[in-house]
Every structure is written in structure tokens, then in C-alpha cells.
């Protein structure tokens, strides 16, 4: 495409702006195709094509146009898409750069932007005051869910979420620097330039594509003899060339956290025609800075007057930006309504560019003579001490009504655009997020940084320093002191524009007695009237006024509306503004996508996945896995045609009849070593350990100081001074943390060392009547006979040539071994054992069969059959408490009155009267099912399974006074029936333990 022949909008003004007419792109808005220049924002491209109307308002569905030119934009929220999966709603048209092929659509309108049926709300406006929804849709409660909320949500709202998964990726980076400069306007560039000369690490960020801030749209200022944009270009290119400086355009600093941690989001590809798929769409930065220099500038305030929201009514500074930066005239007949000097410059620029400015309406009587003189020279009519009291025009402003502030003579002026300026609000968002304290400044009518909490400094407009000369000097000083260097030469500045003068609160025609809509918050449709109503209805705190009216609660977070809302509330409360206070600024400064926050942490990378050494074997055998903490554990191994139930039944049966093989590698393992190891074990566990012989195992219970079960596991004594402790799969980290805590902080003089060995050992459980027969031929150096290695003993030797800690123990109730081998050999040993045992019926079983078999034996699982309020006595393991011990963790807790009281909830077995019925885990238990609701609940089911081996269902439950209620019948009410069950011993299988010892 050649630029010369392409029309990029009839409102382009030749010779103005910084974009090259040679580079054009094509995009669509609501299905219609338009041309734009490369570097245009969507807003500048639409305005160039004469489009102001971009959306419908949130509540009243009023037509709305582009209001600003920056991130504060409340109106022009657009749905942007690259393709069907890359669609993003609520994008500010003023921040989105146009790329070739971009599809932009307006939001919150039906059927079209020009004719929207929701606009009926506007005529009903008097029936929708602040708090309307709270007051009207009060009952019935059910209707909220089914009727009111869905309807209200559909009628009031922003864009629609994308429906497809996001195909892009996002990145994360940590950075450290001596100086972080936020904002690259005149002050920010000066600060970065000064700090960079020291050679220290400097990061400069700015949310716009091009750095320079307001300099880029300043047609008059001269800095060291250069124009504003030229000076900015030179400084930015100098900074780019320096190794110690990181320059980040299109990057928003959105959060300020403790100890100078600032989070940034860099939009990497959002502006590109054809992004490289290797590039992340956005990059999150977490920067830790020695010093943060805030040069975040100021945001222009609108003026609160009747019907101030028509398309074509916009901010004066925005019109200056569109003209000087993008070469776009926002209209052809543009009036200015202001109380600030800065808007006058825009009027002058427009006039010089050939745009007719019918009048400058200034609220003030006392205006700088130089401005008046220049207006006179350019032939612009000046209306001092006047205000705009009304506007007309449905989809675009057509005329304004002007009246003296102190007078009644109305005059109508035809316009196609009205620029407004109520002065400037310093952007103290990040300063306030850093928990700095602000102070109200009468001279600028704004809150300014006062007391600093973090190591940061505000310079330029965000510090209330509106004079560019002073701002640049302030920035140079701050940067020099941050790096302990010399500030060097401060540039000569002339012809800087004045930003003096302001108006906060409502103006004539939007007072307490006027029934007009004068918008304070454009995005949430809050009018001056709404704020007054909230105060009249008793809301005095500005935080409450904000929530009741929703002023400042939209996605722009009140960047333009907060000060006006505050001033109107203060006037109603008859209090000075500082006494009413300011609402709190919170992160993020502007909306941040979930993609940027989630960055790499999705899908496979969402969390750590832990796999056992034998994982691939389980996969090959078709195991179904379950997640246990971060572990993938084989749940069951279905054969073709088998469901879970059938597979588990087969696995249990095979284990009990011949043998089963189970991967127990996930068990937590801690090696407790040292001369004081026994003493330490005595302290940490309720059990006595002195008399446990070397080579023997014992089931240990660990409590907290309050006497409730914390963890359990089998402990092997390998030597006088060495224990191999096992913990529950999920409990390993917290058990080690608790042990370390006591060792380091209560008993630092004890000579004990703790090492996590969970991942050093693969654990292969071989269980069942044929277990010994299967492994015997593979074992060297250990006599497996019961006389030599009885139940609960450990021996060192070799299996398949690999060193092993061979433990004879059982979690199934059968003769069994848990074979610990170094993790690297896990799979080979497993395969060898399986090859040996398969002809004898050795069957792999998963965690579900393991659960069934342990429940048949009444073995508890901490966290399933206990819940943090269960003592060892309650769980039938009171025998594990050393009666003669004088101290252990939990010794006093266990003696507390409630823990020794009669009738506590205790763990028991349950047999359903109908043996085929399997109870639901977690089901509530009652004594009398005919008791009127609410029924007193006496306990709940903790574990419940079908036992194929026993031919009936089994369950464990925690029931009040359960130990003394053996044989009694209780009831489990379910939605469709009441199940009867009998309380019994939880040991259902082989109660004498003949098998386990055999």
C-alpha cells in the first residue's frame, strides 16, 4: 500500500502529528473497514475518520464518545480481536494501537450502536437513582438468583468474556535496579537521564508506545533549543544506548508493594500486525528497586455540568494530543470550556491548524492577560466568568448553551465538539499504594504526596509541580540524590505552558436544585445528583458514598471522577475536602489481564508433579492415577472391560489369596540420626522408643501440643542412634518442619540430625500369603523366616543385587514386606519381583485397593479418619502412648478436661443392616431419624468401601461415645432413604492377626 493514495480519515490535518503518512494499516470497527496510520491508537484512528460515538453507557445506555487520550479513558471501551481465540473485551481505545487486520467492536448496545433499545433507561432515569437496585429488588431472595440478577447483569454491563481458551503465552521476569523511574514525561526522562549518568542500574517505564508524555503534544515548549518531542527523542535514544539502562515502553507499573517491589506489565505483541509466536503476548516484571522515582504525571479532570457526556464532548488535553501527536482534528467547530490555562493552548493550537474555535468559555473572571491577548490575536471569542449549562445533540453534540456564572442571559452556540478542562489531578496512585500519606493542597485543588513510607520520591506533576522548569529541576535533584551523584547541567526551558486554575465539584446547572444529569463518573453512570442523594440518605464516609453510588468503582477506578465526587459530597456535608478524606488507591493502576498474572503457571506448569520411580511401569499397565498432594499415584489397574469397582475387587482378592504388589514410594521418609536420636523420638512421638530393639519396627503416633493426632507412620530402628521414620504421603513436609522447629528452637543442644529421604528410597510393598515365597529367591543375606524376621522388623541385605532396607510390615493385614531400595533401582527391582511373582498370581494393586484392605483391618488414615480434633484414644491407638513417659509433645494437651471427658466422638466400625449398601463417606449419622429437623448429628462416616473379601460393605465412622455403643443401631439419613447400621469394631478382617504374623 502506498500512503499517498490511502485515505486515513478526513479529519487528518496535513503537516501535523508525528506519524508517517507512508505507513498505513486497515482495521474494522463494528464490521466497517477503515484505514489508519501505523502508530495510531484506535481512538485517534476513529476520530480521524470522524467517529466519536464508541459505546453505550453502563446504566442509562446513553451514547458515549471518546473522552480522553490516555489510560484514564472511561467511555471508549472496545472489544478487540485478532482472531476468534484472541479476543479481549473492555480495551480502552485510547491505549490500543491499531494493527493491520484488527477487528474492533463496540459493546453494551443492542441491536446497534446508533439504535440501542436499552436507551429507554435514560428516559426512565428518574426512577434509577443511586441505590435503586438495593432498594427495589429486595425480595423474594430466590428471585435475585433466577430473575433480577441475570436481567440486570445483561442490561448493565461491559463486554463479553472470550469463550475460547487463550492460545498465547505470557512471561515473567524478575529485575533489580538502583533506580526505577515510572513515567517518561519531561520529569521522568530528566530523572532517568541524570540517574543513568552514574552508571548504576536504571529502569525506565512508560505505559505509552512512545516515550515523552505531554512533551509529544506540546507545540510550544523549547528545551535546550529543541522542541519538546525532539528533546524527548534525543534523551530516549541516549538511554537506549546505555548498557546500565533498561527502557520499557508500553509497560504499566500497576502495583507498589512492600520494600520497594513494583510490578510492571509489558504489552509485548498487542500492537503487532503479525506477532512472532515465540514472543509472549505480555510480560510481567517484578522489580525490586533501591529507589523509586515516581514521575507519573497528572490526569485532566472534566467539568460536571448538565449533559456533559454527549459524544463530541471531550478533554481539552486529549484534543491537543490528537492534534499534535496524531495529526487529527477532533472536529471542525470546537468550543472550549475550561477553568484551567492549559486548555487555552489547545484552543490556540487548533486555531492555528485551521479548526474553527467559536469560543473559549472560562469559569474564571481573573485570567492571565497574555492568554487573552493571544486569543484576541487569533480571533477567538472569550467568555470570561461564563459556564456551559446545557448541551444538545443525540449521537454527537450539536450545540452548547452558555450563561454567565452570575447572570441569566442564555446564548446557544453551535459546535461539533466541546473541549473541557477542570484542571489537573496529580497521579498519586502508586505513591498512595506505597502507603504514603497525602495532604490536600489548596493551590492546586488536589491531594499531594506528603509523608513517604517506602524509599520513593515524587517529581513533576504527580508531586503538584506543574511548572515544567521546576519539575525538571526537581527530577534532576531527586535522581542525583538517589544515585549519590552530580545532577549535571539542567536544561534551559522556555515557552512552557501554564497548567494553573481548576474547578472541582459541580458547576451551574448541576446544583442541588437542578434535575439534570451532570455526570461525575462516566463509566458507572454516576451523576452529581446521585452523590447528593447518598449523602442525604445518611452516607457520610466517602468510602460509603463511593460504594452506594458506585462512583469510582468502574474499571477506570475513578481516575477522573474521584475528586469531583469528593467535592460534591464535601459540599453536601458542609465540611472541607480534607476532612471528608480520599478513598484508598489499590493495585492495579489499570486493569491487568489474567494471562499476565498467571504467566507461565498454567497447564503442566501450574504445579509441581511428583512421580515415583516406577511411574512408567504403572502407565504401561494402564493404571488410572489419582492425585495425592503433588504425587501421581496408581489408583487401580483396570483390565479390558473392567470398571473401577471390578478392578479393585480383583486386586483385593488376589492380594488376600496369593499376593499383591504396591508402589508405596510416596510415603514420607525422614532419617533421624545422632546420639540424642532416641531422646528426640521420645519427645516427638507419643510412643516410648527406648526399648525398641535395633532391627525392629514400631507404629508411631505424633500429636501436636494440644493432644490431637498430627501424623502417624512406621518407624524402623536401624541402629542405636539411627531411625528410619515414615510419615503420611501428604504429611512429610509439615512433619519435618515440626521436627526441625523443636530441634532448632527448643532443644538446640541435642545432638540430632534430620534428613528428608522421601525421594531417596523407592518402596515396593509385596503383600499376601505368597509374599515371602515370591521375594525369597531374589533376596541375598537375609533369612526371611518368621523366627528370624518376624512381623515388624527390618533387615539389611540385597535384593536383585541392590542394597535394601527390607521391612516386614503390613498395611493390608497379610504377611507383607515393604522393600526399600535406592530410588534409581526402583523400577528394575519392581520388574524383577513382578516377573518372579506373576506366575504365582502376584497382582499390582493401586491406592483404592490399599484403602479397602487397610479399612478391613481398621487401620486409620490420618486426615481421613481423623480431622484435627481426634486424640489417639478416640482413634483406637491409645496403646501407642507411653504411659510412663514424663514428657512428649501433647502430653499436657491429652490431659485437658475435654480430651479426657466421657462421650467424646470416637472411631468405630459400621456394618449396614443391608450388607449390600455402601455408605457415603462424609454422611451424617443420627440416633433418631424421626426427630424433627434439625436432627442432632452424632457423628459422620469417615471411610466406606465394598469389601469383596468379606462379602459385605464396611465403614468407619466417628460417633459420640462410640466405644461404649458396640452393637447399637444408628441411622444415616440420605436424600432418598434412611440407612440403618450397627456399630461394631473397626477391625473387620482377621481380628486376631493370625495372617499378619504368619
Amino acid at each position: 500500500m502506498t500512503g499517498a493514495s490511502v485515505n486515513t480519515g478526513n479529519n487528518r490535518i496535513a503537516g501535523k502529528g508525528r506519524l508517517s503518512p507512508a505507513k498505513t494499516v486497515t482495521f474494522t470497527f463494528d464490521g466497517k473497514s477503515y484505514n489508519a496510520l501505523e502508530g495510531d491508537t484506535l481512538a485517534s484512528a476513529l476520530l480521524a475518520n470522524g467517529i466519536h460515538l464508541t459505546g453505550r453507557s453502563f446504566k442509562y445506555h446513553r451514547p458515549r464518545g471518546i473522552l480522553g487520550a490516555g489510560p484514564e479513558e472511561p467511555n471508549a471501551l472496545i472489544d478487540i480481536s485478532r482472531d476468534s481465540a484472541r479476543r479481549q473485551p473492555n480495551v480502552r481505545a485510547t491505549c490500543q494501537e491499531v494493527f493491520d487486520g484488527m477487528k474492533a467492536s463496540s459493546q453494551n448496545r443492542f441491536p446497534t450502536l446508533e439504535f440501542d433499545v436499552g436507551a429507554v433507561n435514560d428516559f426512565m432515569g428518574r426512577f434509577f437513582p443511586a441505590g435503586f437496585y438495593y432498594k427495589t429488588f429486595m425480595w423474594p431472595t430466590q428471585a435475585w438468583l433466577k430473575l433480577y440478577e441475570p436481567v440486570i447483569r445483561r442490561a448493565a454491563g461491559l463486554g463479553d468474556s472470550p469463550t475460547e481458551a487463550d492460545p498465547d503465552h505470557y512471561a515473567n521476569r524478575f529485575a533489580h535496579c538502583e533506580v526505577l523511574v515510572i513515567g517518561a514525561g519531561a520529569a521522568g526522562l530528566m530523572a532517568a537521564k541524570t540517574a543513568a549518568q552514574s552508571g548504576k542500574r536504571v529502569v525506565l517505564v512508560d505505559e505509552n508506545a512512545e516515550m515523552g508524555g505531554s512533551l509529544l503534544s506540546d507545540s510550544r515548549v523549547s528545551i535546550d533549543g529543541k522542541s519538546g518531542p525532539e528533546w524527548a527523542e534525543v534523551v530516549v535514544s541516549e538511554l537506549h544506548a546505555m548498557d546500565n539502562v533498561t527502557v520499557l515502553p508500553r509497560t504499566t507499573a500497576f502495583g507498589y508493594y512492600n520494600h520497594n517491589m513494583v510490578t510492571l506489565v509489558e504489552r509485548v505483541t498487542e500492537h503487532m500486525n503479525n506477532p512472532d509466536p515465540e514472543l509472549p503476548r505480555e510480560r510481567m516484571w517484578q522489580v525490586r528497586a533501591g529507589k523509586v522515582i515516581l514521575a507519573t504525571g497528572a490526569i485532566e479532570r472534566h467539568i460536571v455540568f448538565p449533559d456533559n457526556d454527549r459524544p463530541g464532548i471531550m478533554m481539552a488535553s486529549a484534543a491537543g494530543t490528537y492534534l499534535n501527536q496524531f495529526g487529527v482534528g477532533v472536529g471542525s467547530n470546537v468550543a472550549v470550556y475550561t477553568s484551567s490555562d492549559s486548555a487555552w493552548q489547545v484552543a490556540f493550537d487548533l486555531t492555528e491548524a485551521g479548526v474553527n474555535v467559536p469560543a473559549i468559555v472560562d469559569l474564571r473572571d481573573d485570567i492571565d492577560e497574555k492568554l487573552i491577548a493571544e486569543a484576541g490575536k487569533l480571533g477567538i471569542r472569550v467568555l470570561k466568568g461564563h459556564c456551559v449549562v446545557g448541551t444538545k445533540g443525540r449521537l454527537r453534540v450539536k450545540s452548547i448553551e452558555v450563561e454567565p456564572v452570575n447572570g441569566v442571559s442564555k446564548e446557544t452556540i453551535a459546535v461539533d465538539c466541546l473541549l473541557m478542562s477542570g484542571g489537573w489531578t496529580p497521579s498519586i496512585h502508586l505513591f498512595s499504594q506505597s502507603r504514603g500519606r497525602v495532604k490536600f493542597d489548596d493551590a492546586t485543588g488536589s491531594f499531594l504526596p506528603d509523608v513517604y513510607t517506602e524509599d520513593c520520591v515524587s517529581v513533576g506533576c504527580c508531586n503538584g509541580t506543574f511548572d515544567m522548569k521546576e519539575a525538571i529541576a526537581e527530577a534532576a535533584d531527586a535522581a542525583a540524590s538517589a544515585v549519590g551523584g552530580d545532577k549535571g547541567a539542567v536544561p534551559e526551558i522556555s515557552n512552557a505552558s501554564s497548567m494553573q486554575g481548576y474547578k472541582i465539584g459541580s458547576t451551574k446547572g448541576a446544583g442541588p436544585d437542578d434535575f439534570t444529569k451532570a455526570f461525575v463518573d462516566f463509566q458507572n453512570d454516576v451523576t452529581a445528583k446521585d452523590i447528593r442523594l447518598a449523602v442525604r440518605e445518611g452516607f457520610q464516609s466517602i468510602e460509603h458514598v463511593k460504594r452506594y453510588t458506585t462512583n469510582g468503582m468502574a474499571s477506570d477506578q475513578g481516575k477522573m471522577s474521584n475528586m469531583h465526587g469528593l467535592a460534591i459530597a464535601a459540599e453536601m456535608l458542609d465540611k472541607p475536602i480534607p476532612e471528608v478524606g480520599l478513598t484508598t488507591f489499590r493495585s492495579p493502576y489499570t486493569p491487568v489481564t489474567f494471562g499476565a498474572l498467571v504467566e507461565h503457571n498454567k497447564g503442566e506448569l501450574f504445579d509441581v508433579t511428583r512421580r515415583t520411580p516406577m511411574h512408567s511401569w504403572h502407565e504401561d499397565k494402564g493404571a488410572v492415577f489419582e492425585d495425592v498432594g503433588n504425587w501421581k499415584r496408581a489408583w487401580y489397574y483396570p483390565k479390558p472391560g473392567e470398571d473401577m469397582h471390578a478392578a479393585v475387587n480383583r486386586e483385593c482378592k488376589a492380594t488376600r489369596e496369593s499376593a499383591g504388589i504396591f508402589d508405596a514410594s510416596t510415603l514420607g521418609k525422614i532419617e533421624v540420626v545422632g546420639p540424642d536420636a532416641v531422646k528426640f523420638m521420645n519427645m516427638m512421638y507419643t510412643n516410648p522408643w527406648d526399648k525398641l530393639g535395633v532391627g525392629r519396627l514400631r507404629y508411631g503416633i505424633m500429636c501436636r501440643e494440644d493432644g490431637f493426632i498430627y501424623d502417624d507412620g512406621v518407624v524402623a530402628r536401624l541402629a542405636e542412634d539411627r531411625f528410619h521414620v515414615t510419615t503420611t504421603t501428604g504429611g512429610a513436609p509439615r512433619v519435618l518442619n515440626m521436627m526441625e522447629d523443636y530441634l532448632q528452637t527448643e532443644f538446640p543442644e541435642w545432638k540430632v540430625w534430620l534428613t528428608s529421604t522421601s525421594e531417596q528410597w523407592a518402596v515396593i510393598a509385596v503383600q499376601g500369603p505368597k509374599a515371602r515365597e515370591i521375594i525369597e529367591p531374589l533376596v541375598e543375606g537375609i533369612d526371611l523366616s518368621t523366627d528370624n524376621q518376624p512381623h515388624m522388623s527390618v533387615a539389611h541385605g540385597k535384593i536383585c543385587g541392590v542394597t535394601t532396607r527390607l521391612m516386614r510390615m503390613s498395611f493390608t493385614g497379610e504377611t507383607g514386606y515393604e522393600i526399600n531400595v535406592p530410588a534409581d533401582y526402583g523400577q528394575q527391582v519392581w520388574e524383577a519381583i513382578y516377573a518372579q511373582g506373576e506366575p504365582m498370581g502376584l497382582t499390582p494393586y493401586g491406592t483404592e485397593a490399599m484403602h479397602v484392605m487397610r479399612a478391613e483391618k481398621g487401620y486409620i488414615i490420618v486426615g481421613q479418619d481423623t480431622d484435627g480434633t481426634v486424640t489417639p484414644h478416640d482413634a483406637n491407638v491409645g496403646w501407642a502412648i507411653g504411659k510412663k513417659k514424663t514428657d512428649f509433645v501433647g502430653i499436657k494437651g491429652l490431659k485437658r478436661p475435654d480430651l479426657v471427658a466421657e462421650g467424646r466422638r470416637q472411631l468405630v466400625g459400621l456394618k449396614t443392616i443391608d450388607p449390600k449398601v455402601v455408605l457415603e463417606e462424609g454422611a451424617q449419622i443420627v440416633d433418631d431419624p424421626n426427630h424433627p429437623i434439625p436432627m442432632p448429628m452424632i457423628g459422620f462416616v469417615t471411610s466406606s468401601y465394598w469389601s469383596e473379601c468379606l462379602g459385605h460393605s464396611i465403614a468407619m465412622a466417628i460417633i459420640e461415645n462410640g466405644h461404649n455403643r458396640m452393637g447399637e443401631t444408628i441411622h444415616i439419613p440420605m436424600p432418598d432413604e434412611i440407612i440403618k447400621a450397627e456399630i461394631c469394631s473397626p477391625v473387620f478382617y482377621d481380628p486376631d492377626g493370625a495372617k499378619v504374623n504368619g
Partner: protein
Amino acid sequence: MLLIYCPYCEEYLPEIEFHCEGEAHIERPANMAELSDEEFEKFFFIRENQKGIVFERWRHIHGCGRFFNVVRHSVSDKIIMTYKAGEPRPELTDEQIAAALPPAKSTPANEAVWTVDKEKAQ
């Protein structure tokens, strides 16, 4: 996110490497089995949890693994000092306390109006 000086590693490191382990300087009684219920309550349940300067235990859990103590202001989140486990509770100087205090309220700005009214009411 806090920057915490580990007294064992002798280095400032980000908060994600650490884990807070509750109030410091609560010694486990040597005669645990003989404690009265009231004494046990005091030891196990009662915590200062104050708004202001707190002494707390932290563990450099993703680093050296050591437990140590941190003196922090719970409002400003400023850390006055850190010291090794077992060292006595330090006496703080006025300067140290002043440096950790949250900024004085120069104006009621940023404070909800009710605090102003409450002060008036008193």
C-alpha cells in the same frame, strides 16, 4: 513483598523464601506434664497479636532451613531487625522504633470519616 535479612545466610532475600512461624519467645515449659490448665492455656493459646511491633519466628524454609526471629511493625511492615534463634529478646532503641512507625497522619486524608467522628466523640 518483604525483603528479609537471614541472620544465618547474612543476606537480604525475598519473602517467598521464608515462612512465618508465629510469635517468638514463647518457651516450651520443661515441666509440661505438670502444667495446670491455666498455664497450658497461656502457653498454647494466648498470643499478643498486637497492632504495632511484633516479635515473630520465621524460617528460611527454601534456603538454609534455619529458624530465626524478626522484629517487625505489623502496620508499616517495616523490619527493625532479625536475629538468630535462642538469642534474647532485644531491647529496641527509640530511634529503631521511630524508624519503623507508619507515617503520622498529616491529615485525615486516606482515613475513613468515622475515625474523625470517633475522635470528636471522645
